[in-house]
């Protein structure tokens, strides 16, 4: 799961840049860049990330793109 968060974050940093990432981290209330791939699963975290991304203007299409890039289904 942490791996999925990382892929999601990498996708958006590349596509939307550092300030989007900073906003997303502050909105989610978690330094998402620090989540290690081996971290235990947190089922509600992906939901929080998705909600925050939408609040920052990410469309369903873009969100789906990030999910597909991350090779997972929300």
């Amino acid at each position: 799961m942490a791996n999925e968060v990382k892929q999601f974050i990498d996708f958006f940093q590349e596509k939307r840049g550092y300030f989007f990432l900073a906003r997303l981290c502050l909105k989610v209330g978690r330094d998402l860049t620090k989540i290690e791939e081996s971290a235990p699963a947190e089922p509600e975290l992906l939901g929080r990330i998705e909600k925050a991304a939408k609040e920052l203007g990410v469309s369903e299409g873009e969100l789906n793109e990030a999910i597909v890039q991350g090779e997972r289904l929300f």
Partner: protein
Amino acid sequence: MKDINVKTGFSKKRNEFKAVEEAYSQIAQEKISLVYFCLDKGYNQKKINEAWQKKLPNVPFIGIGGGGWIPMMGNLTGLITPKGIQDKGLVAMSIASDKIQAVVKPIHNLSENCKEESERVLEETAKDFNLDLKNLDPEKCFGLFFYNLFAEKPILVEEMLDNFYKIAPNLLFVGEGTIKFSFKKFRLIGGAIHTPEGCFEKQDAAIVLIKSEIPFVLEMSSNHQLAGDKVFKCGKVKDFVVGELNGRPAAEAYSQALGVSVRKLGSPMMPNLAIMTKNPFGAIIRDKAFTRVVVAPSKDKKGLIFYQKMTEGQEIYLLERTDILEDTRKMLGRTKDILSEISAIIYFPCLLRIKTLRDFKIPFSEMYDVLNIAPMVGMHMGGEIYGGILSSITITCLAFGSPNK
């Protein structure tokens, strides 16, 4: 004409028209793209604005006024001038370049209609400026943002910034809030914002949109780092007030982490800013500390009032100060790495940095020497904006480079 010409001017004269005259005589040049100025709150701001309007017809200008004495903290004005860091005076910078265009617009009626007004002004300004907000190039365009409502309607600042972000995600803003201490109200209130349309001193904001073919950098240093790995999870949150940290009354959890009694945090009217400046909360995102600063305990001394809007479940870390001079040098080092040669630099530092310098008995001249890497101007105020994100206790800057580098 060189690709960019920058001049700075400073006056200590107390007569408003003479001060503007003196500063203007030092910054006057052909084809000015933008004038930025800062002044202490002792001036009659309306007269200052009138004087600049006469001097700069058809020239975009933006100015801020405020600062002054804060009880138990001293004079925190901190004007960054060609003559050092000063408590009083008027400092100005003119930037002239065929490759830089700027447009300045005030935003009013924020109390009643913040979202609609800020949106309308941004969209109208962009339209006049022939700027496509959805598809602009962040390497060729950015914004400055100033506001004077932090002390009274702080929630509106982040609402506006969020709104700008949704409309124009690539438009990065830097700037700061204007602030001063009112002895009559005995609290911090908004300062002045100067635009060609007038001087505004109550619940207003202003944006400056800038198109630049000259390379530029927006940077920030907070001079704080993680004090430890412990995560504090926010609970019972209402806008700026956090009721609990890790399930305990927030003030109690904070004071225990600092090793002081809750009483030491002060009161909403008289907070212990020394403690809160030293150890704010925050998060480090890719090596940059974004502070979430406690400004006071709540009335019941159980909750904490923050500078920034907080959210339920938000996780924050306790931060501690780093070397303020070294961190500022590092910020400017990063700027120089990108720009190579710096033509002009505008600083947006927090007034609490003045307090930090005093706490550590660091002479202002030492900080001045660190900052003085190019023609520069600035003023210590409150609530800095870095890339459209509201922060505090930082120094944020805008630096223009050289077109040939």
